[in-house]
């Protein structure tokens, strides 16, 4: 069974041979050669002329910088009890989402730091960013043969047999994607001892304190709109962390805040030159009409093809609607009197709350009231798409390692 070997190389190879080469290729967690490779990658990503064009690649390069890796190592060691020795799992099989190109790098590098060898399956379709990353990695691999020898990025068609072969021979499998992808992969038998991580469909929300927002001056308000732009428009609003509902918290001033905010966001969208294809514009239109039928809609604002805002009177029908896939700049909004009023409407599918204008006390109370109902992370507006090694409730570094106990607990 043959696959396209994208890294290292660029030819077609038999999967059995690749698996053989990656067998027994463990390193200790946070090995020097691993850290050296990641530092080199960070440096290239931040400096490469091609990479500089893409903010998400810049964000990646910055995130994996030496200072952050040191921080991760410190936290990792501090959280490991005396009686435990952390070891790599072995070979980790990654199935990242089809089109969020930078996500595979985060997943892969954390696994690398954990000491594992890795096989990553990418989609055969490549975006500009994806191609750029592969090019950079291929060049770096020349200088880091130890890493090159124990990691592979491949692509292949819809051949479950290949997925099955790798799944039988790996020590952990991590799949990101929609519910259907996760279900499909889970149905392919994993080696009995292997760890199984899955990140399925999520929904994310933004919350803005209307009173606070209205108290800001023009420049500050524009800054809020810019933060919201990053959250909503990166990855065409198709990441699990992209907000698709914006909640205004206030008292009889929510509409006023909204009226002020959306034109500002539209200005940012125009300034950044964000554009969608006609097909996407049509899809956004279609979604607005579906919302008019299925939800309690009091009005829809359309800023041409750039931004559509669906204003809701109540949450009625929203549970079913939140499973719709939408992106490219279309968002629902609703006004509430307090953040706590959101709690009954939060579901286990909800991942991120991007918030502006709330004190840490209010947020802590909110998290406590939620009590695990949903929302795995609360971040400041503008930081939704920051990567976190604790992802969807899973501490990836720990999940990618095994804990070997030296002495019993007593």
């Amino acid at each position, binding site marked *: 069974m043959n696959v396209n070997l994208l890294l290292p190389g660029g030819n077609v190879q038999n999967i059995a041979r690749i698996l053989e080469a990656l067998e027994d290729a463990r390193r200790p967690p946070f090995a020097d050669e691993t850290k050296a490779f990641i530092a080199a990658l960070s440096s290239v990503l931040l400096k490469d002329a091609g990479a500089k064009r893409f903010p998400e690649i810049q964000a990646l390069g910055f995130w994996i910088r030496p200072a952050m890796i040191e921080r991760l190592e410190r936290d990792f060691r501090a959280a490991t009890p005396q009686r435990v020795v952390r070891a790599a799992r072995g070979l980790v099989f990654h199935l990242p*989402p*089809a*089109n*969020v*190109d930078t*996500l595979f790098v985060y997943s892969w590098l954390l696994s690398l730091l954990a000491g594992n060898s890795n096989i990553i399956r990418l989609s055969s379709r490549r*975006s500009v960013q994806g191609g750029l990353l592969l090019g950079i990695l291929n060049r770096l691999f020349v200088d880091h043969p130890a890493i090159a020898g124990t990691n592979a990025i491949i692509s292949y068609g819809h051949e479950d047999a290949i997925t099955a072969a790798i799944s039988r021979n790996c020590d952990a499998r991590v799949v*990101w*994607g*929609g519910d*259907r*992808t996760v279900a499909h992969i889970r149905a392919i038998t994993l080696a009995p001892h292997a760890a199984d991580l899955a*990140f399925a*469909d*999520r929904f994310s929300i933004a919350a803005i304190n209307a009173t606070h927002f209205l108290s800001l001056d023009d420049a500050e308000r524009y800054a809020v709109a810019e933060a919201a732009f990053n959250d909503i428009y990166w*990855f*065409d*609003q*198709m*990441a*699990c962390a*992209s907000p698709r509902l914006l909640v205004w918290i206030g008292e009889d001033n929510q509409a006023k805040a909204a009226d002020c905010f959306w034109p500002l966001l539209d200005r940012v969208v125009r300034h950044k030159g964000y554009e*969608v*294809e*006609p*097909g*996407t*514009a*049509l*899809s*956004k*239109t*279609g*979604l607005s*009409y*579906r919302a*008019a*039928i299925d939800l309690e*809609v*009091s*009005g*829809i604002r*359309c800023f*041409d*093809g*750039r931004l559509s805002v669906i204003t809701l009177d109540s949450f009625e029908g929203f549970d079913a609607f939140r499973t*719709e*896939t*939408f*992106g*490219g700049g279309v968002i629902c909004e609703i006004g509430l009197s307090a953040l706590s009023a959101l709690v009954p409407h939060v579901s286990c599918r909800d991942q991120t709350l991007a918030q502006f204008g709330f004190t840490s006390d209010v947020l802590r109370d909110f998290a406590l009231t939620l009590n695990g109902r949903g929302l795995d992370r609360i971040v400041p507006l503008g930081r939704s798409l920051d990567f976190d090694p604790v992802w969807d409730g899973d501490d990836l570094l720990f999940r990618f390692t095994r804990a070997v106990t030296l002495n019993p607990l007593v």
Partner: protein
Amino acid sequence: MIPDYPLGACRVETRHAGLKPDLQPIDLASIAPMNEQSGSMLDDMIDSVQYSLPQSDKERILLENLKMLTARHTSRCPEYQRIIKVMAPGYAVADRLEDLPYLPVALFKSHYLKSVPDQRVHTILTSSGTTGQAVSRIAVDTDTARYQSKALTAIMKTVLGKRRLPMLIADNRELLRDPTMLSARGAGVLGMMLFGHQHTFALHRNMSADREALIAFLARFGREPFLVFGFTFMVWKYLLPAVRGLDLSNGILIHSGGWKKLADESVTNDVFKATWKKETGLKHIRNFYGMVEQIGSVFLEGGDGLLYPPNFADVIIRDPYTLKPLPPGKAGIIQLLSLLPHSYPGHNILTEDMGVVEYKDREDGWRGKGLRVLGRVAQAELRGCGDVHAFGIPS
């Protein structure tokens, strides 16, 4: 790509014997008039000579009557009412056709929209695209079904005359074998068979030509006008090679469906026509455009190669981003308007096709807007975590 007519594979669920595919010729004159009130505007628009109504007259008539249809559907289709309430509560004071509310065509996939009770639904036309896509469901009652036949007749009469002609079908007989499960091609063929007799299927099940049947047909009917019908790629790929060198100069070819496959082989409308003429002498060729979501809106090709709406229908082109109407000469999304859909709110729809109106009221040609269809809008391709790359169509 010009969509296949009807859209994708079309499955027809028929409820009454009357509409089962009946391969015996039906005498069109025996179909009772649709509407007891002979003054009904739709009847007038169907009965009057097609393509002779000046655009401004048409717009005036359509404006008032589409408002009435909008009111009708608003009061009888709860989902439609919710849309109008949000999108266009003040439509009644619109003074331009462009200001009337329309529905994105995908809505017929996500919702089953109808303006008649279930018992009155005579047929549900369904269309499915590629695997994984949802189906459009179009509720047709007896009235709408009969209007559709009447309309199709009025349109085809323009090029076929009043007599039923001997008919050659560029497809195979198996297409109609199961009357409860008709594909797009089957439903299209069935509709067109009303205009012909001595129906002869030119192809075997495996698409190879039934050479004996072809020769026999031409020997018997080739010296007088006869009708040839088929889907564009079928006619090009399977029929033409089989009749190369034969004399089809008395034939009238009506075809519909996507040009995409032919475009892949660099076959344009001009090349298509020129080749048929050169190799068989067949020179009367007409294309048409339509979709199951607005049945009866058959846009027939005029002498100038453009597609013309019948008297009771119209087209508007819109910018995909601003959704503002565009003037002739500017390409955009095709919006279709029609007085025909009574049993479901398909009277004003925004399609997923791109097109351009080249002319309005040509002096030396047909009246009304002359449309050129440019192809399907490319599916939305958004990057993201999910495995749905094209959003908008729920499945």
